[in-house]
């Protein structure tokens, strides 16, 4: 099954060459449709990761702040949220929102007059993943916040900072540096967990790959491709987080000590 490609497409040509010489069928290289599916799968995985990562960080920062609230019921609410999301499987959470909550919400009419759910599967995936990672981020930020000495906060208070001002300008910047390694782990975990969106038919990397291997009958090949792609994606994230960690290092403080 030799394949024909237009001459300027070197990637496709490479795919054909590999197929002809080794029998390894990388349709994502020489088949335009598969290639598009695969690339958009990667794009969707990155999109899910980046957006959920963003919201999970906001949830973490706000939640950790609210945990120090003077109101008992706010603290309880946050703790309840953490317990629920930490102690349940993320796949169950995604199902809970997509099949549970979604059906309770009103549907809306789209342009051609069809009834559509209020939120798409992609939106539910982002929502669910953000809460999942956010719950862990709250705990992580809290441990960082607790590492900031009271005397430092007191110095801020003596300079006229409010509790919020102290949190934003002093506590958080210090806490983030303390908890970056743990945060790093959780965000890597979040990226990997986006593959669960497969279960509600979000066309991310795993879903796209599965469609490709079903059509092209190249299961083992695609499995390897899939693994390597995740390795690369996580690698990029870890590299970015490490660069961030280095840029945040303070001479004479924490990991920056001794420089």
């Amino acid at each position, binding site marked *: 099954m030799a394949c024909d490609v237009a001459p300027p497409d070197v990637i496709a040509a490479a795919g054909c060459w590999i197929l002809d010489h080794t029998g390894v069928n990388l349709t994502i290289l020489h088949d335009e449709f598969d290639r598009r599916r695969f690339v958009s799968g990667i794009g969707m995985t990155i999109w899910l990761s980046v957006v959920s990562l963003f919201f999970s960080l906001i949830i973490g920062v706000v939640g950790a702040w609210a945990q120090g609230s003077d109101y008992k019921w706010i603290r309880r609410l946050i703790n309840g949220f953490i317990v629920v999301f930490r102690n349940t499987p993320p796949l169950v959470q995604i199902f809970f929102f997509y099949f549970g909550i979604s059906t309770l919400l009103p549907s809306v009419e789209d342009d051609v007059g069809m009834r559509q759910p209020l939120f798409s599967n992609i939106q539910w995936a982002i929502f669910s993943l953000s809460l999942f990672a956010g719950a862990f981020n709250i705990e992580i930020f809290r441990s960082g916040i607790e590492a900031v000495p009271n005397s430092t906060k007191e110095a801020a*208070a*003596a300079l*006229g900072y409010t509790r919020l*001002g102290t949190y934003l300008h002093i506590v958080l910047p210090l806490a983030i*540096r303390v908890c970056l390694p743990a945060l790093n782990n959780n965000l890597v975990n979040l990226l990997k967990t986006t593959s669960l969106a497969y279960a509600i038919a979000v066309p991310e990397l795993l879903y796209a790959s599965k469609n490709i291997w079903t059509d092209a009958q190249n299961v083992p090949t695609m499995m390897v491709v899939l693994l390597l792609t995740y390795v690369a994606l996580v690698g990029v994230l870890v590299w970015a987080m490490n660069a961030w960690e280095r840029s945040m290092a303070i001479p004479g*403080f924490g990991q920056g000590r001794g420089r």
Partner: protein
Amino acid sequence: MAAAPAPAAPAWTPDEPIIRVTDVHKSFGSFEVLKGMSMDVRKGEAICIIGPSGSGKSTLIRCMNALVDITKGSITVENQEVNDPNLDKLKLRRKVGMVFQQYNLFPHKTALQNVMMAPINVLKQDKKEVEERARKLIAKVRLTGKENSYPGELSGGQQQRVAIARSLAMRPDIMLFDEVTAALDPETVKEVLVTIRELAEEGMTCILVTHEMKFARDVADHIYFTDKGVIVEHAPPEEFFDNPKDERTKTFLGQIL
């Protein structure tokens, strides 16, 4: 300071005490730390508070900028009652700066940034103008050249002088110093004391908790001796050191001198 609807304090005039502590009590749980302390501080005075460990010196001065709330009594700063639930803490803390034993600089900011932060974040002052002032303050505490060093790269004495500059950047009327040289080694104590002495000589109202007796004798206008939550006696330095009246003062001075 315009016609505020809140129960406005009678306007303060410089001939009145700038701080007035009247029969202040403070308990932590059932443990009474301050058992009725009173003192008046006039503008431009340097006051030293000395006394054995645990006698309530820190607690007393921390009440003056509302870091600790008092259980009973009254503290006024420029006639503003500190023990008032509606107290505008920002307004009070603009007037009353504080320097701590452990410096407590913000480790993620350079020396210059430490000095600039509060005027910019809290007072929302113009960054350029604040920076200019901050550089002058760094020079004033003799740290020119260390503007861009992080606290972790500075010695204790240098950090403490940055902390003093940081407080001064808020342009306070009163400075509180809580054993600011206690964590320093003997050589660096001097450089910090020189800075404080200059401040006092420029007319800054200073309230110092200190164990530096020689410094207290040289710089203080008035000395208060505390023990077990009460002010045992107070007097100008010559009288206090040369002619202490109370037995407890004599014992304390005997041990320390």
